[in-house]
């Protein structure tokens, strides 16, 4: 099973739109986490509008309010870009449905956690246990209980995406056991 994750958080108090996470000129680039990560968040904040600016901050988690990655864009670069930049989980009040499905289909946990944005500041050290769903703010001592991550999400991540994951399940005859 997935292991406990620890690292620094980046918090956005504003709405974060998918089309700002990956700006328009990269919408048609190939899906490649390392490449997609270079300009991730370029449209969200001026400080990230430089090559590898977001990635170089070394964040592990993103914390946001409602409708994270909303705005109706279904581009998968949004998810691969964040993963390429080292993000291991995103905690928010709610997520755009399109990007929630993309994130899960790449194995990046998008965790619903009400009001979490009020209890974390950018740079705080967080610890997340995917098996129990407990999110700890090691900087402040705050603790939140979210739902555990379904085990298949980690399996998708280690397979390199939904399609590979299902291909393996079909090949070894275990697809019928998914539930």
């Amino acid at each position, binding site marked *: 099973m997935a292991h406990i994750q620890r690292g620094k958080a980046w918090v956005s108090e504003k*709405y974060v739109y998918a089309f700002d996470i990956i700006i328009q000129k990269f919408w048609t680039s190939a899906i490649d986490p390392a490449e997609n990560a270079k300009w991730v968040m370029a449209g969200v904040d001026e400080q990230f509008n430089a090559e590898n600016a977001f990635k170089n901050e070394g964040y592990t988690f993103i914390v946001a309010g*409602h*409708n994270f990655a*909303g705005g109706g864009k*279904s581009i998968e670069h949004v998810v691969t870009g964040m993963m390429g930049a080292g993000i291991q989980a995103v905690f928010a009040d*709610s*997520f*755009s*449905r399109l990007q*929630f*499905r*993309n994130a*899960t*289909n790449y194995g990046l946990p998008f965790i*619903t956690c009400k009001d979490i944005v009020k209890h974390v500041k950018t740079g705080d050290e967080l610890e997340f246990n995917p098996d129990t769903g407990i999110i700890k703010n090691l900087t402040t001592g705050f603790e939140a209980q979210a*739902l555990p991550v*379904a085990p*298949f*999400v980690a399996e998708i991540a280690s397979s390199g995406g*939904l*399609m590979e994951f*299902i*291909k393996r*399940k*079909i*090949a070894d005859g275990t*697809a*019928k056991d*998914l*539930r």
Partner: protein
Amino acid sequence: MPGMTITEKIMAQQSGRDSVRPAELVWTDIYTVMTMDYLGKQTFTALHELGKTEVFDKDRVICVSDHLVPPPTAQFATMLNEWREVVREHNITHFYDLGKQGIAHQIMVEQGHVLPGTVSIGTDSHANTYGAVGAVGNAVSVSDAAVAMAIGKCWFRVPESVKFHITGTWQPYVMGKDLSLHIMGMMHWNGHLIYKTLEFEGPAIHALSMAGRMTLCNMTVDLGAKNGIVAPDEVTKEYLKGRAKGDWSMIASDADAHYDAVYEVDVTNIGPTVAMPDKLDDIAPIEKVVGTKFNKAFVGTCTNGRLEDIAMIAKILEGKQVHRDVNFLLVPASTQVYLDALKAGYITTLVEAGVAVDTPSCAACAGIHTGVAGDGDIVLSAGNRNMKGRMGSKNAQIYLSSPAVVAASALTGVISDPREL
């Protein structure tokens, strides 16, 4: 164990669990997978990428031509040819191609391919229409649909449920669409319905026809919700008689089920309602927009192209003439609807009144087919989306309303109240 909503029950049953909680991720069995001309070929290509050449059940993968038929350009014609070939190759039982065509969501419900208590998906955003018969209907991506075609399963995040308890008496000329638009104005698109399922119930819902329920569930995605559902009742039973392609049983929410929020709406107070151009949640009661000039009238789409809608506009236009400044286009939602409307005499009435009728398709709805809007057009449409450029030109304006408002207004050339004919 606390009670469950109908959606939670369906997701629990279809994933082989005793219960589920909102936000939990589950793999459920899929009753039917729909794909259509626009994305269908890609979906089959993705199926092959999974190492499969056959679908999980050729009776339960439903293929429909709707966005591109009959093809308006050589490019679309080529796409359609490739699509036909791929459907044939996979020996799909139910292929609704030109001649039997219709908008996929209408076909899915009308031809009995969605059943209460089951989960069906489609590669188009309005697959939430299936909630009208008490099914969980979801729009998914090409890869998710390919996975379901391969293994008959799809993963879902169990949605939080929001209840709309609808009471009162429907006023004459007030339709399901008016309730949809009213709710749109009431909730505003501010994100708090994201990923939630909207459950419609109460006496005014039991009094609503299947066509009205389909409109209501269809527009939940435009409200920013995941989908909508109406638990099966006598209307559902009657509707599915001779139609349902499979067995089903009644299912309902428990009395002690948990809802994120409960809203009460009394339809007695709802009159014809209009969405202003560009923003779906900019809603006005008709009194505020009466007298607004427009030049194109459109009735059709997966929202309002059904027999009941056509009956309504025929009733309003019978023996009268569409105003000379208005072009009125009707596109029935499916071949079955078209045929029923022909047999009932509605088509004759409408053609005599000066309405142009085209063969079933999505038509101008997405701005790629029959009857698109050009610069300066002001469209009064019974469809579901009115953002800039949706029906063609970015320099066109789109008002949304019920078919009754479209028909009443087409007589005068300005937005008019059907109750005051």
